[in-house]
């Protein structure tokens, strides 16, 4: 492994202290960029103005407690409860299938791997659609009938299956990131396989995995907005349907709802970053924490996981 040298500022390596020409160019770009950005934003604002979207009547509802109490906060509560329930179930799914995928028995490893690759390869939305419409049909095939699946349940099932599969990959990578000497030391003092897993690998892997698990929660929270499509009354629905149908103010509602989503997700992302910095310093694990960016982790299907 290549040891990465400490680097204070990303930009500073790529360019020298600017000379006279570079300073001049940078100054020009420093003026042109804001002009272009303000131009695009200004065009948008101007178009909003032309369509009368700055009228106070459209924004005024957001100053009323009633609007927040009866639409936005219940929507936020539904979004968060779907996300929290799905996160808990997905973690359980991840642990069970993660152990399954790491199993030495082929007949356990293969089906677990197939299930994970399947759920990772298809869109969450078609899982949500099928989770809602499918179970009654399947029950009917067996001459039974079941209660209709609620929108909440469908969203939770879809989110659990997809994010659970991502957690499986995170879990596997976390265990594999522990230097092999750790497990060997365990076997050397006579621990069994299950003891090595539970007492040596898992505790260290948790420190390693924590940041990336938290950053995956951002993905989960964002995907909970898919509930909108099956009329789950989440935050998105509250803004784009309920508030809008009462006050006919789609644009202001969209801006407020976006701000809420971004604020929550930035907070969670920040938490993930903080955890990463903390576990990088921590000496509880022999491995460095996994990157919070899952795109490298999920890169190739059927992979044996990153080799470390």
């Amino acid at each position, binding site marked *: 492994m290549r040891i990465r040298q400490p680097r204070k500022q990303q930009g500073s390596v790529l360019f020298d202290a600017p000379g006279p020409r570079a300073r001049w160019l940078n100054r020009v770009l420093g003026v042109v960029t804001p002009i272009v950005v303000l131009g695009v934003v200004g065009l948008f604002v101007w178009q909003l103005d032309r*369509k009368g979207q700055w009228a106070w009547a459209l924004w005024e509802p957001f100053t009323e407690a009633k609007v927040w109490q009866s639409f936005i906060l219940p929507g936020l509560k539904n979004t968060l409860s779907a996300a929290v329930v799905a996160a808990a179930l997905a973690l359980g799914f991840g642990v069970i299938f993660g152990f399954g995928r790491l199993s030495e028995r082929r007949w356990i490893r293969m089906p677990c791997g197939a299930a994970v690759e399947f759920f990772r390869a298809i869109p969450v939305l*078609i899982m949500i659609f099928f989770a809602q419409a499918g179970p009654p049909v399947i029950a*009917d095939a067996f001459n039974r009938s079941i209660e209709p699946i609620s929108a909440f349940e469908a969203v939770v099932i879809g989110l659990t299956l997809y994010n659970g599969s991502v957690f499986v990959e995170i879990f596997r990578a976390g265990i594999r990131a522990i230097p092999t000497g750790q497990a060997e030391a365990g076997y050397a003092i006579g621990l069994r396989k299950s003891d090595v897993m539970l007492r040596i690998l898992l505790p260290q892997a948790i420190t390693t995995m924590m940041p990336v698990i938290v950053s995956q929660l951002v993905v989960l929270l964002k995907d909970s907005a*898919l509930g909108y499509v099956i009329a789950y009354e989440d935050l998105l629905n509250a803004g784009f349907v309920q508030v809008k149908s009462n006050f006919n103010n789609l644009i202001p509602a969209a801006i407020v709802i976006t701000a809420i989503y*971004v604020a929550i997700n930035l907070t969670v992302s920040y938490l993930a970053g903080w955890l990463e910095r903390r576990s990088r310093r921590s000496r509880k694990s022999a491995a460095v924490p996994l*990157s919070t960016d899952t*795109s490298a982790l999920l890169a190739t299907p*059927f992979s044996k996981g990153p080799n470390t």
Partner: protein
Amino acid sequence: MDWNNFYDKLLNFGPFLEHSNEIWSGFLATIRLSAMAAVLALVLGTLLAAMRVSPVSVMRATATMYVNTLRNTPLTLILLFCGLGLRDTLGFMAQAAPTVSGYWLAVAGLSAYTAAFVCETLRSGINTVPIGQAEAARSVGLPFSQSLRLVILPQAFRAVIAPLGSVLIAMIKNTSVALVAGYFEATATMKQLFDDVGATVPLFFGFAIGYMILTLPTGLLFGWLAKRMAVTR
């Protein structure tokens, strides 16, 4: 036990084959959206990554703000805003035929969203390029734009082929959300068939396999490319 019913609901691929024309055009629409959005997202994402490492602080701040906002907003919200906000309220592309405007609004929303992820992936690729490369580029007198274009980015791209592949796969799956912007693709077709002929298991698996045919080879191709193009150090 009604075995005919059992067969129809759980095993009969008949309806899937009967509607193969609609399903084919649904997936074709998915591919058209993916291809266009992938190209635009790559271009915009590269531009954003270049801005994020540039010496001009205003550029860095702009790109950072863009990435932080787009990455933390649900895609459903973005595409819904494209449909309901940009078209229906603000009148962008309102005169175009619904199929045309739906396509371009979905392309706009999807590529704007994906560009943020491309930018972050590329930036992590720039981080893997050894400092010596940048220093060497500077010492032979290359200015920022040339050292980025000729030395840093080519190596950064090759380092992140596999992660870019997973961004692309995520984007292909995300095309399923385009139905909220009014674009009719494979997932919308599936929903329609669920309503028309019922949500049978074969129908679901048929569509799932359709998506897997798009995503799994993409992942394997990018994995292979990543190995082939890896920078030997």
